[in-house]
């Protein structure tokens, strides 16, 4: 019996050609791309996982799944540097490379029967959107669902139309808050952990899915612990600089874990000590 080939020889480093099917500007600096393989079927992917998107001649970036259709992955990208800039400029028809899917998923199966609290900050709503869509598609399997969204200012709210549809769903509590706003904004102002006491959930039987800037996730996790949500049912999606995405190069090392294969979605009880380490 032959040994399995090392992962490096099985093409894990070779991007598969994809094509942009649709590009949509969400915000001034943020674009959503629908991308499909140029040949063959779309691989299976789970909410919370990410792909490495490659712009020829520019480079590769880790981008979480923000949705999927039968034929395409959907990714939402914020322009922060060379690679993300190039990704946000790709027009429909453009070619790009993709490696993936990689990483751990949101625990949507394990949380069945529980109340689910989803807390998104800024672009953190993008990796959570497939989980939200999954929960709503299988609404009867879950207890109370709450979606708490934080953004910087009112024009920075991601997916406003979809949020409006979610709001219309009586089976989902949706609250949106801004970090800052003037008196012209009639919605909620204040950081997202302040919304927690307003959501209706049973702490002992709740799972929380959190994605956003790490400081916001830490503050939210602390507030949830204070409300007696068990640490092992608080899940965060972490980010670190990535290169290989398959646990070989060490770029994304986080204590004893590698975010690319042990994450990005990780349990708070397992990572709380490492989260407290500066510059990790």
């Amino acid at each position: 019996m032959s040994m399995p080939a090392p992962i490096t020889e099985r093409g894990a480093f070779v991007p598969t050609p994809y094509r942009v099917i649709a590009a949509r500007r969400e915000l001034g600096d943020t674009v959503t791309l629908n991308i499909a393989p140029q040949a063959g079927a779309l691989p299976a992917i789970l909410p919370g996982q990410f792909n490495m998107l490659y712009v020829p001649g520019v480079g590769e970036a880790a981008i979480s799944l923000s949705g999927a259709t039968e034929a395409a992955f959907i990714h939402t990208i914020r322009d922060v540097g060379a690679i993300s800039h190039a990704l946000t400029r790709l027009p429909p028809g453009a070619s790009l490379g993709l490696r993936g899917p990689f990483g751990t998923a949101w625990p949507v199966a394990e949380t069945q029967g529980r109340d689910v609290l989803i807390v998104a900050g800024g672009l953190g709503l993008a990796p959570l959107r497939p989980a939200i869509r999954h929960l709503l598609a299988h609404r009867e399997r879950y207890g109370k669902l709450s979606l708490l969204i934080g953004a910087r200012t009112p024009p920075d709210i991601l997916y406003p139309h979809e949020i409006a549809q979610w709001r219309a769903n009586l089976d989902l509590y949706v609250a949106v808050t801004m970090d800052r706003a003037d008196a012209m904004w009639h919605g909620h102002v204040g950081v997202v952990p302040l919304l927690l006491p307003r959501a209706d959930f049973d702490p002992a039987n709740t799972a929380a899915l959190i994605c956003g800037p790490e400081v916001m996730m830490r503050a939210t996790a602390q507030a949830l612990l204070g409300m007696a949500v068990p640490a092992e049912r608080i899940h965060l999606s972490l980010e670190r600089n990535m290169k290989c995405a398959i646990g070989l190069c060490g770029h994304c090392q986080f204590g004893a874990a590698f975010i690319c294969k042990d994450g990005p979605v990780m349990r708070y009880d397992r990572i709380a000590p490492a989260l407290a380490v500066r510059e990790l």
Partner: protein
Amino acid sequence: METLERVIGTQRVFAELAPEHLAVLTGCARNHRFTAGQYLCREGLPANEFFIIRQGRAALEIAPPARHAVVLETLGPGDVAGASWLIPPYRWSADIRAVETTLALGIDAACLRSKCETDHDFGYAMMKCFLPMLVQSLNAARLQVLDVYAGPYY
């Protein structure tokens, strides 16, 4: 009809309060109704009474000169509106404006402070009610100052 004492007892901030303390507190409380645009507190004025929102929403805001007021936080059901009544000089440090019709419990601050002085057990119970709320506000204000969504990504 719900008694005032029962309404107070259902407020998040007083969830752990013993029945005898609830009765003492009720002696300082009354109901209020604010219409949209009406102020619950005005910066600089005496903080004679603070509020617990029962229904509706109010904006905690500061108005820089010649500019729109900046909203720092929106207060909703269960939130305590105002903390300046706790410490001298007992004057509001911001405005609180009803954004929509807002029902609130008003607590007479001088009455409550005097009951806390007279009965330290009651005073300690009150401190345990208000301190978590103050720490939560402090943490929230710190997070807000960090402006976390303005980073290189997210």
